[in-house]
């Protein structure tokens, strides 16, 4: 029986916008569900554009914000659920660790970077004694290709963005988490260094048996590293499944649009589509959130949310166009 890597059920987060007299409610996440089961550690990519809810999901997992409803499990443990059912904050830190987008903002410029590593070793790894703490730090830094001697006692401004991001990863793996949540971890890193960081995720997955939730808008790196992929649009899942299945044979019209827009080397763009304007009103659509932009729209798309259809190739798709065998209706 494969283990649950991540399982999300009916998870929602509602924000209020506007002034005191003109409030609008927006579902940043409108009841999403997906589950990834595997015996092996898995890299799950969460793909979406701005406003898709991908960062909201990361914040919910780290309990930076509270959900409006629904539940979530990671590695068989309930992390989001009723206050009594879910694991304690302390256990959550040992289970899930974050890596943030901007390495220059993640570190306090007045603290030496090894303070962060030491604090994680003491407070989360529960390492005791000077030797054990240093050993944990050395090991983690080695795993990301840095030497303890080159890092100890230095301040963030003495490192490049790529190096700081490596240190962030080292800090996360000191805690030996089951899952690392990485929110756009390479978008601020220079192109020549980017693939080295991305390769680290693969090696850490295999060496440390850590799963990743890789949150990004970059489909090409997602294809390169991920095992499973979830595509979000306006707070809803549109398509989810094995990364190769979904990206090589996309079915949902939104996934196709995204893939067509990637500026890939070796494949020139064809003509440009008329540009639409993204409005908050899309969140309030009764039916499919994508229907106003969808070239394959059906009458029912405007009336109700498309149901989840599970296809034979293991993917789930939310589109009225498809039947269970993956054929168009």
């Amino acid at each position, binding site marked *: 029986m494969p283990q649950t890597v991540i399982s999300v059920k009916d998870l929602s987060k509602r924000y209020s916008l506007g002034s005191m007299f003109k409030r609008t409610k927006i579902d940043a996440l409108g009841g999403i569900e997906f589950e990834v089961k595997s015996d092996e550690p898995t890299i799950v990519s969460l793909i979406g554009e701005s406003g898709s809810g991908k960062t909201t999901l990361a914040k919910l997992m780290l309990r930076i914000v509270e959900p409006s409803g629904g539940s979530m499990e990671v590695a068989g443990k309930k992390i989001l659920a009723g206050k009594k059912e879910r694991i304690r904050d302390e256990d959550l830190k040992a289970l899930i660790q974050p890596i943030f987008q901007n390495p220059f903002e993640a570190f306090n410029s007045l603290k030496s970077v090894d303070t962060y590593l030491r604090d994680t070793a003491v407070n989360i790894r529960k390492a005791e004694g000077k030797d054990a703490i240093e050993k944990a730090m050395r090991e983690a830094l080695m795993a990301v290709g840095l030497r303890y001697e080159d890092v100890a006692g230095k301040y963030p401004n003495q490192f490049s963005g790529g190096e700081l991001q490596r240190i962030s990863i080292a800090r996360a793996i000191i805690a030996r988490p089951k899952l690392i949540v990485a929110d756009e971890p390479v978008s601020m890193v220079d192109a020549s260094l980017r693939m080295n960081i991305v390769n680290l995720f693969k090696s850490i997955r295999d060496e440390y048996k850590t799963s990743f939730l890789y949150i990004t808008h970059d489909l090409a790196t997602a294809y390169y590293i991920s095992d499973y992929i979830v595509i979000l649009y306006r707070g809803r899942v549109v398509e989810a499944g094995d990364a190769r299945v979904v990206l090589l044979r996309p079915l949902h019209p939104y996934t196709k649009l995204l893939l067509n827009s*990637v500026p890939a080397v070796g494949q020139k763009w064809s003509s440009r589509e*008329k*540009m639409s304007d993204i409005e908050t009103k899309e969140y309030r659509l009764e039916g499919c959130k994508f229907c106003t932009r969808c070239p394959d729209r059906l009458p029912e798309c405007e009336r109700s949310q498309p149901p989840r259809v599970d296809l034979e190739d293991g993917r789930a798709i939310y589109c009225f166009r498809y039947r269970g065998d993956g054929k168009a209706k």
Partner: protein
Amino acid sequence: MIRLKNVVGTYTTVRGTVDALDDVTTDFQTGNIIGIAGESGCGKSTLLKLLYGNIEYPLAMSKGMIDYGMKGPDGRDITTENISEHWFKKISYIPQSSMSSLNPVVKIRKQFLDFQDFRSRKEIDETLEKVVAFLRELDLTPEVLDAYPHQLSGGMRQRVMVALGTFFQPDIILADEPTTALDVVVQKGILLLLAELQRRMKNTMFLVTHDMGVHYQLTHKMVIMYAAKIVETGDSEEIFSRPRHPYTKMLIESLPRIGDAKKLQGVEGKPPSLWDELRGCRFAPRCSRAKAECRERCPELAAVGNGHSVACLYPES
């Protein structure tokens, strides 16, 4: 032809001065989209600032000159000193962050009229009519004229910036990471729009971005920069199919492609600090092909045929 001769761009800081653009000599053919690629700190934004003539403390053009090969309406040559008089009309700049470039307390309509002195109400109306027609070509409704910048989405704001930068059909357009903050779908729309406008107006567009995929899609010519120097220039097709500088080659080879399962490797190490005294080729410490000579002698940008130039002592074949 726009010619740069021994241009040095220097920043003054508390620590002293640093050359963010170091002795750059090159020619740009007009009528093309010229892509400038490189990593943070390579001098690509400094190059744009110098081209735009937006040279203010702490930046200074300490050496060299730029020959724009253009004359103003008064018949005088356009130079670095007087180019600011021709902003928007002859040369325009499309920045990365439209939110911090548009005036937040002024409606878009006023921002379109700020360029000119009008003598009568009729002139204003005529100009506005042209603006509306132009906005429609950019898939923008005329209603944006009555909006304040914050009322527009990021993509619409960036299209307003494109409209402002191209309305007078300038000879030179400088676009500095124009779509970096945008989603891929919107990015494609705006970039193809820019390419369409350039094709129609036949002006010279400098496009700065670190995304090699974007360069592949749009540019005719490429300039690759590394640590304040130009290391390679040439036709984009040629650069992508046959890169001669090891840095360019590694950059292109490290790009992931959907459908390709090959293991990729980035470039190890990091660019040198411009504060240090730099000898030899600046890429040599990270270069797998570097020989002893590379660490001693600084290679000059030299032609290797087909309009392709490279600054490398042992270029790729």
